[in-house]
């Protein structure tokens, strides 16, 4: 019973990891650019929730749609202002650019909001959910459900809408897509907006349980990269399933062995997959 409880706890946190990675893999899949500043989108989502709560007593759960919109705007604007200029640049320039943005966002957050740990206390999301002898924190359950809903919405959007098809066409061949009347610039901005919104929603969902500080993105970005590679670069479904797998391995490994070694287990799993199946679980060879 305790093991089942642990596995399900792993699934819950894994779903949130998955949402962060879905955003990252979406940007990579469409543009072939690795966004090192992705964790900072999550950080901004957390601070948006925090300030909404601290200034206006608005619960992070209720400001979540606004946080998503805000981060969509941040992502799309970042594309228009910065990323647009490096789409055809050498990979090293792209890495330095997004890495620089990561440092910039952290610095700005420290400057304006101080390096202190903050938290949202007194959210509507408190208490526990009991189910068939198992117990879970309500914030964790809501975060997981929110992450599933958001990932699912992104997946549906990509599969079943005109813009989703246009995005996939641009990812496959932006010049051929342009001949179908698709403006690649708009699609790239859309990908950045959606990617940032995913991370922002994850940040909002985590804001009631996780400390909020300028470097908080670092705790998640490493896992997000692992998931993107594990699931197959650019594969949204792959990142999602990899998220659940990594969450379970992390929590169950920490439970059975020692929490100090959970990162060792996750990264060993990553090495194993990259070794046996370099294209990732759902990537194309």
């Amino acid at each position: 019973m305790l093991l089942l409880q642990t596995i399900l706890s792993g699934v819950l946190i894994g779903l949130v990891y998955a949402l962060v990675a879905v955003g990252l893999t979406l940007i990579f899949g469409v543009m072939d650019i690795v966004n090192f500043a992705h964790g900072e989108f999550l950080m901004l989502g957390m601070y948006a929730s925090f300030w909404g709560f601290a200034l206006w007593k608005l619960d992070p759960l209720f400001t979540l749609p606004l946080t998503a919109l805000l981060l969509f705007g941040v992502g799309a604007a970042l594309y228009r202002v910065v990323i647009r200029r490096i789409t055809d640049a050498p990979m090293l320039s792209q890495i330095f650019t997004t890495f620089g943005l990561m440092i910039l966002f952290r610095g700005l957050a420290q400057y304006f909001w101080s390096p202190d740990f903050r938290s949202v206390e007194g959210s509507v999301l408190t208490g526990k959910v009991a189910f068939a002898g198992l117990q879970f924190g309500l914030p964790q359950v809501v975060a997981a459900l929110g992450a599933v809903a958001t990932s699912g919405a992104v997946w549906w959007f990509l599969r079943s809408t005109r813009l989703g098809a246009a995005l996939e066409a641009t990812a496959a061949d932006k010049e051929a897509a342009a001949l179908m009347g698709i403006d690649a610039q708009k699609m790239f901005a859309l990908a950045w907006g959606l990617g940032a919104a995913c991370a922002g929603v994850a940040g909002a969902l985590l804001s009631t349980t996780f400390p909020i500080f300028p470097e908080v993105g670092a705790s998640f970005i490493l896992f997000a990269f692992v998931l993107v590679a594990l699931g197959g670069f650019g594969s949204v479904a792959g990142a999602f399933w990899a998220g659940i797998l990594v969450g379970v391995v992390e929590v169950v490994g920490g439970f059975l062995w020692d929490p100090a070694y959970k990162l060792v287990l996750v990264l060993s799993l990553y090495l194993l997959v990259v070794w046996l199946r370099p294209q990732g679980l759902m990537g194309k060879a």
Partner: protein
Amino acid sequence: MLSVERLTKRFGGLAANEDVSFEVGRGEIIGLIGPNGAGKTTVFNSLAGFFPPSSGQIRLDGQPVAGLPPERMAALGVARTFQIVRIFKSMTVLENVMVGAMLHHRAVPAAIGKAREALRFTGLDRRAGDPASQLTVAEQKRLEVTRALACEPRLLLLDETMAGLTQNEVQEAVELVKRIQARGIACVVVEHVMEGIMPIADRMVVLERGRVIANGPPRAIAEDPVVVAAYLGEEYRAPGP
């Protein structure tokens, strides 16, 4: 409908096209031929909006369009295919064509309907559900044409759609181009396969080293000594009278 006026495109000091002028009427088939490196694909790239011409003008129904980006050209009714097929390999055949149909049909069900109609027109409908990567080369070329047709163009630019096809497949491609013309769509066809283009072209435009050296009906072009020399080299020129 389309008029190309003194189109010039330079890459650095090299002129890929120089003073290229020709006209395409509604529903006409124009064969664009010339030796390798004559600048045929450069003409296509300028027409499709892939890069702005260095000078000269392109008019669609009198409206100047030179320098517009490809997505604007597509919206104005110019579609093209590539010498080496560029279908969306990760998608199914139907999804590929839907991306084209979505240019004018925003609702997904309408786009599906339009895409299926285009697939029936080109005879690819029974492969609609297959991944595009599983098609044969001839089918992939046909898919690219279908996808372009789904954009409902007025002008279709076909870049060597018959290269590498068997005799039968060339015949099928010729039939398809004629049926496209019958729909009132003008076609500019770059082609090395002469038996494919000669019988169907209303006029031929011959490029050599970036310039138009001949422009006229296929029969006249085939006998034009300038064209013969361009293809076979000076020393093979037929002895003069």
